[in-house]
């Protein structure tokens, strides 16, 4: 019950937050000197009438407040509006969301299932060559910029011919059997996943290692060891549970990054995901599309934090007690 009230409170808190986010984003986009019609204006074959019609269609002839009001009204009704090309924003997003989700969820899944054990192993084998080598590798992984790494891998793909140069499916995808389709997508995913995986693995492994080392140094672990518990029990039953708390917060952020975290890599690999769509929309000042994506990002972030907080309440009795007090 307590938790339910807490969740409800948090959800109510998000409403003013979303309003502020939308107001700021809307005004920044509209006040920036990007004119969605600038290209048309400088095209010798576009007539004045056409320009006038386009201005009216995009609502650019009205004051910003009115534009915002119109946008907010339809947003509340669940209508995301149309892009500057007249396509529905929701269908545009629907085309891309599955692709991005596919990429990011594979990456997060891999990173967590490899990163956490590696972190634990490194912490247990603290200061051994194994730990040192991992430290060097993860430092490289954290230091290398994602777009640069992506470009390197692309060149690798071109030179060796082992991997396709970007994209998600081959051009004869339509004629493949189901199994071939799965193989084809996997083949295309290897490189982008490698880039994103390397980055998030490095961070996660370092985090896990640091947390566990802190905990292993604490008094109750020493006590458990003194009590004569087996090393396995000490680490997995006592230490790990306490070390994982900060990672849950991290998980919240990872959740927020599900839809927006891979934009750079998507762009380099020409991956048909949200990142590319939104980048192009920003360049064109396609207000409805940009707003939809910004709002989506905000909602995902809030939701991720909420989920993390709830998970924390479940795993950590200290917070549970605290919230009741």
């Amino acid at each position, binding site marked *: 019950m307590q938790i339910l009230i807490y969740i409800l409170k948090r959800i109510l808190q998000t409403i003013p937050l979303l309003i502020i986010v939308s107001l700021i984003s809307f005004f920044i986009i509209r006040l920036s000197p990007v004119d969605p019609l600038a290209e048309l204006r400088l095209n010798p074959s576009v007539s004045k009438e056409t320009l006038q019609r386009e201005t009216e269609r995009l609502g650019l002839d009205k004051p910003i407040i009115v534009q915002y009001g119109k946008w907010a009204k339809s947003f509340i009704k669940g209508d995301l509006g149309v892009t500057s090309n*007249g396509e529905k924003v929701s269908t545009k997003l629907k085309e891309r969301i599955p692709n991005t989700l596919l990429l990011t969820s594979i990456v997060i899944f891999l990173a967590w299932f490899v990163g956490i054990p590696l972190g634990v192993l490194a912490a247990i084998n603290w200061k051994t060559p194994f730990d040192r080598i991992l430290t060097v590798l993860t430092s490289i992984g954290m230091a290398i910029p994602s777009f640069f790494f992506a470009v390197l891998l692309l060149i690798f793909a*071109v030179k060796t011919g082992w991997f396709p140069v970007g994209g998600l499916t081959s051009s004869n995808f*339509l004629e493949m059997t189901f199994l071939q389709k799965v193989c084809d997508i996997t083949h295309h995913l290897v490189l982008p996943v490698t880039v994103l995986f390397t980055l998030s693995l490095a961070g996660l492994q370092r985090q896990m290692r640091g947390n566990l080392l802190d905990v292993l140094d604490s008094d109750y672990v020493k006590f458990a060891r003194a009590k004569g518990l087996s090393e396995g029990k000490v680490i997995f039953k006592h230490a790990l549970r306490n070390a994982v708390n900060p990672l849950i917060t991290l998980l919240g952020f990872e959740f927020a990054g599900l839809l927006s975290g891979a934009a750079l890599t998507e762009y380099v690999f020409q991956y048909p995901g949200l990142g590319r769509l939104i980048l192009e929309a920003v360049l064109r000042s396609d207000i409805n599309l940009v707003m939809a994506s910004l709002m989506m990002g905000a909602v995902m972030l809030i939701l991720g934090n909420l989920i993390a907080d709830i998970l924390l309440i479940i795993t950590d009795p200290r917070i549970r007690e605290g919230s009741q007090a």
Partner: protein
Amino acid sequence: MKRVIYVILVLVFTALFFKACLRADIPIYKQQSANMNHSYILDYYPYKKKNVTINGVDYLQSQAPVGKFGGTFVSSTIGEGPKTFNPFNSKDNISSQMSDIMYDGLVTTDPVTGDTIPKLAKDFTINGCEYLIHLRKGIKWSDGKPITADDVVFTWQNIIFDGFGNTSIRDSIIIDGKLPTVQKIDDYTVKFTTPQPFAPFIRMLSSPIAPKHIFEPAVKRGKAYFDGFLSTNTPPKDFVTSGAFKLKEYVPAQRVVFERNPDYYIINKDDKKLPYLDKLIYLIVGDINNQVLKFEGGELDEISLQGANVARFKEMEKHGDFTVYNLGPNTGTMYIAMNLNNRKDDNGKYYVNPKKQLWFQDKNFRQAVDYAIDRENMIFNIANGLAEPLFTPETLNSIFLNENIKGHKRDLSISKQLLKKSGFYWDKSGNLIDKFGNHVEFDLYTNAGNTEREAIGVMVKQDLEDLGMKINFKPIEFNSLVNKLMATLDWDMVIMGFTGSPLEPNGGKNVWLSDGTLHIFNQRLEKDLNSKRYPFEERIDYLYTQGALATKFEDRKKYYDEYQQIVYNEKPLIYIYSPIIISALRDKFKNVYPTSLGGVTHNIEEIYVSEE
């Protein structure tokens, strides 16, 4: 100590790793790139298609060598891909390109001479204001229904004249507020009548013809519905088309796949129906770099190249499976404009500082600027030698190009003489002073982010500073620049570019008519539309109007020649250069005859694959 060794080891490893990623074997091909200029395009396509009638069907017969059926051609487009597949809604190049593949027009352009030649029409005759079009008998839409005069009349009357979709065609054929008319004579004959003779009209007939039985219901539901009709979300099987290829699949942000139309009306010399290719694929790529990688990785069959890549591809061509083609100058025109505005804004203030007006409105000053600009140097350093100097508003591949304008090299002594004639002089430190004692100093704008124009700006600044002018070069954001040029009009000099048309000068009327919406060097706002014209503006107004009214090519050419001569003498816009289009295409494709006007794929239905 051990630690130090570790650190060094790691550093060495990293350094080696990065070294391995670098291509050490990139020689400098400067000489090579300059050579490209001379391997001129052949503009060779000797296979004019013929009309033949077999069993009552009026086919168009290809005269090119007979090839093999099958195969795929993979090309690419940069950007977001098509926004619509409705040929009447397309507002961007890629959408029009895609719908042009699917829907044929009545006429098309000869890839070598630029003449208008029949396509969906069997033939046509022009008699003053009357255009009589005969259609092919027995040819069909992709759903088997015949293509008749009803479709043509419907397309022109109910879609184009009634203002559905993108109205740019409609806007450009309104003459004195009146539209042409279209009339069905019989099932296979249509007559168009323009209110007065209007030469550009015949080229407008190349716009696609829509199947009436598919488009009529959409038109009946109004303009708002039509805007979303046949969008990119429409299932491919719903398209009823007439082109060589029909839509098979569209995957957003990845590719557009076309398959051959098995019932196309162009046949080869063995009377078999073309096209040869089974599939035509356009990959949607985000930027040029990715496009180049995809070509090198073998995923693309054709690519257009720029800058440093040309030299690299020329080198790779020797042992590669592709050929690099020079397609001649492109249709872009880059120019320097000076603000000739002599009017006041609403607050009674001059748009252009009066002392600067004195310079910009002085023909000698403008010519001096022209002579001071080193086009050759720019071409060599900025365009990697892959461009031709430009002196006229018509592009170098235009069929209306005034060949008598030869241009000139940079000559500072002529510049100085011209300036002296107008009373300019130089002070002791070499600064240029006008006759009222003002130092010549002004701002030069261009749009930031366009590296080519920024580089040109830097060189123009240097060239003009050799004359003792002081130039403040200010690249600013594109939209702010457009606002300056179109609304606030407070600018001195600008470097911009337009896309011209090699076939129809009348497309530039918004630029050259003195009340045009893009009359950039002397933009008249709504309130100033009746302000005084410069004599040369009046003359160009006259020539442009007459040029559109005359119908014979020779007559039109005279008017447009004179306008180019005036622009060359008066220098309202100082043209700089035209980049050359370079394309690479895999050698396995045969029947390839690239031309300057048609590009590589103008005869896509005749191209076939032969692995030898």
